[in-house]
């Protein structure tokens, strides 16, 4: 499973990086979204893969090693919120850029030549 997950993360990241290196703003926003998926998965993966581990703790926690690491999950939640917010912001900026610059090139102008 680790291997599959790692490949998945890698593919998301590679697609994302490819897209953010493209010249069109919409490509970049899609790329950033893909990258944030990759990063979110990566963070959760840092808690190690524990499929089917209990999520809630009982009143007596017992052996902490049984549980999936909750901290990366909490971190990812924060990261998701922030990346959602920044995606929204970037979207609006790219719209504004498209409107003002009359082009959707990331540089606000078509390259010469």
């Amino acid at each position, binding site marked *: 499973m*680790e*291997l*599959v*997950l*790692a*490949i998945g*993360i890698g*593919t998301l990241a*590679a697609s994302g*990086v*490819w897209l953010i*290196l493209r010249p*069109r703003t*919409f*490509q970049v926003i*899609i*790329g950033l979204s*893909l990258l944030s998926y990759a990063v*979110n998965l*990566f963070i*959760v*993966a*840092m*808690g*190690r*893969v*524990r*499929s*089917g581990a209990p*999520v*809630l*703790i009982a*009143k007596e*926690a017992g052996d*902490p*090693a049984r549980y999936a690491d*909750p*901290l990366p*999950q*909490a971190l*990812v*939640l924060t990261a998701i*919120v922030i990346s*959602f*917010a*920044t995606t*929204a*912001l970037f*979207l*609006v900026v790219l*719209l504004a850029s*498209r*409107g*003002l610059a*009359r082009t*959707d090139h*990331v*540089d606000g102008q*078509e*390259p010469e030549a």
Partner: protein
Amino acid sequence: MFLLAVLVLPFVGSFIAALLPVHARNAAAWLAGGVALAAFCIIAVAYPSVTHGGVVGWRTAWIAELGLLFALRLDGFAWAFAMLVTGIGFLVVLYARYYMSPSDPVPRFFSLLSAFMGAMLGIVLSGNLLQLVFFWELTSLFSFLLISYWHHNSAARDGARMALVITSSGGLCLFAGVLLIGHIVGGYDLDKVLASGEAIRSHPLYVPALVLILLGALTKSAQFPFHFWLPHAMAAPTPVSAYLHSATMVKAGVFLLVRLWPALGGSNEWLWLVGSAGLITFLLGAFLAVFQQDLKGLLAYSTISHLGLITLLTGLDTPFGQIAAIFHIMNHATFKASLFMAAGIIDHETGTRDIRRLSGLYAFMPITATLAMVAAGSMAGVPLLNGFLSKEMFFAETIEIHDNSFVDQALPYIVTAASTFTVAYSLRFIRDVFFGPAAVGLPRTPHEPPLLMRLPAELLVLACVVVGIAPALTVAPVLDTAAGAVLGSNMPEYSLRIWHGFTPELLMSILAMVGGVGVYMMLRSYLLVNEGPPLLGRFSGKEVFDWMMVTLSWRLARWLESKLGTRRLQPQLRVLAATAFLAALLPLYWRGVPLADPLRTPFDLAFALLWTVGAACAVGAAIQAKFHRVVALILLGSAGLVTCVTFVWLSAPDVALTQIVVETVTTVLLLLGLRWLPKRIAPAWAEAPAGRIRWHRARDFAIALSVGVGLATLALAAMQHPDTNSISRYFIENAYVKGGGTNVVNVILVDFRGFDTMGEITVLAVVALTVYALLRRFRPAPESIPVPEQQHAQDSHDEAHPDRQKGDTAKDTTETASLMMRLMFPVIGVVAVFLLLRGHDLPGGGFVAGVAMATAFILQYMARGTTWVEARLHFMPVRWMGIGLLLAGCTGAAACVFGYPFLTSYFAYAELPLVGRVPTASAFLFDVGVFSLVIGATVLMLIAIAHQSLRRYAVPPQSGRHLGSEASKEELV
């Protein structure tokens, strides 16, 4: 303490002068003159304490931690220099009072002049080298401002800039050199440095330090090859030239040479570097001076030449040479200042400084002419004038054997030749300007200047004569004191007498005199027509300087900037990706990648299938994002769904839940955005050479692949990394016991690390505000301003059929769905409340609940459109955000009131009547704050975009209730 007064006085005067009204000419002059005179008197009075090697010091702590005191130090040498600075300063102020035009902003002039005097005094009185550098750079700055005083004149601007650039960069070198000296000596204190000559000269850093310090000194004193700035500085008002370019600033360089000679001199490097710079400058300056047609230009080159002479004297590296240098510094200051004043008077009275146009002025201004002739005589080294004395000493010194090299042997001949030119230009100055036929066609009819304008020159010329005739009675003790301060016990025997008998130096003087007359006669006809010297052609330092400024500091810089940097986004991201890749790769390469058994958990076919889909969707999105935006969006959403499922697979239900709701909102958001992105049409440049594009793509592909493989490797390695003693253990053990919740993740979010959440929701608020603010100024692409094609088509379809009304088609399709969507509002609302309430114990929480609730709102907008919804639901997102943030913040701050840290939670089980035991945690209130904020922020962002459809672009504002109009700034609904 009086030293501090002397130093501070000019600056105070400068400050006050700067505040005077623009035309307060006399007040400013009085102020500046008074300051100079007062400083002069204070210093004069201090004379007894500096004789016989006496030193007056004053120091106070400045940067004691770096071994730096603020130290003022007055010895004989500094005393003599300070007398020059203040004395000539006073005379120049007096002169300038009459010279400056009433229409100039004179207070500024005197303010700058006083400040310059202060800075110069700072150099002279500095008791440590760093402080000296400090004032050194200040003199550059004020000289820049003084030279460019008439800044409407481009020559003044250029000259000032050149002076600033050259002297300041020299100052930077001096700074570096001083740092090295400080490093060698272990401090910057002047006494300490002067006492460590031996240690300095034997240190391996001696040569770099010497070179750097010389760069400072030689640039300041306009020595070859940095001499060229001085003639261009002549664009300054003449009082400035008289002060800065004869007596003070340019003397700072030679002052430094003499000052540091005990520490740095006495080596071959000194002899060769300083000596050759001085010799070349002396010769070159004298030669070039002859060919100047501008009076001030002639004086400038003459100054260069005389400074070269002084530099040569210090460079000859003998105690006697230093004495002669000091003496000539004083003499040159007096005669050159008076000559500048004379030139200024001539310029002032005739309106020109061109030697070719001037003639026979003796008849109009006999007194000025006499003054100028005496001073020029001194400059030429005519006996009975002070210039003669120091020149004799100079000749004598050049005859001394120093190191027996060829140059040393030739030195007397070379300096005699140079002196020939000195005589020639002095003669020319007198003969061409004051004698001959009366000039015609001058801009003004010349006459004698006011008495007080002449007075400074008179006093200076008087000094020339008195010193020249009776040196032993006048200047000898002063010179003795000054030289003694530099040389200490090293004082050689010397005598200041007019007549030493028939000595070789007298012969040299006579040769120079005769030769000078001859040269002048020979060149007369040439000078009447030609501009500039015959041999050096059109070569000029200014051109080299300009070329360097343009080429190095502009063209090269721009070229380098374009090569080393970019303003395009893609290369930046490429560099970023590559750097990040390397940053992770290199440590792994050096330390090794800990990849063990790749199958720590068993292979799972369904999971693999899932990720086949996920990966395919990601790649698909990458391919489709350019021309098939909706498709890319769908693929992105699919990859997101796969990610959600994966979170569940990894035992992270909260994350999955959050990802799902966020996913939904993001899709809607991007679709809202697509409304304003016109269709992509392949532009013409897509036909550009395929090879280049293919290469770019290959490179990007390689980067993308590398990053992907790299991240996958990191993830794999980390997932197989043995479990660490993570801090999570504490959370699991204490979430219920101390945090009062069974959902560890949520307890972390609202309690253990509630501070993160606090920040995170603020981010959301900030972004929402930004989106709102930006969209108020939104101007869509022109192509997307009209209603979308679909709506247009549907409307025209309706209009084409008589039994239909506009909007029917859309209504038919969406009416049923709209009803269902409205029914969903309370349903989603109930689920949202459910998620909010249970978050602490089970998956859920304020954020998910908030986004869910926001989805319900957005669904209503989708169902019925903005106008309809906002007429019914009065929802004020910004206020919700504010309330949410305040609630969360105040919940956290409540703990502070009870003496606990921010965000300390409180929980207890409350017995509610009929309901039973209910857990009440302050963290819950915090979560409600989160909930409120998230609804507000999410709705604000999405609806702000949606509102754009209502705006009428490029037409007068609508009074409708749309975003940004006065009526509904806050009430979005």
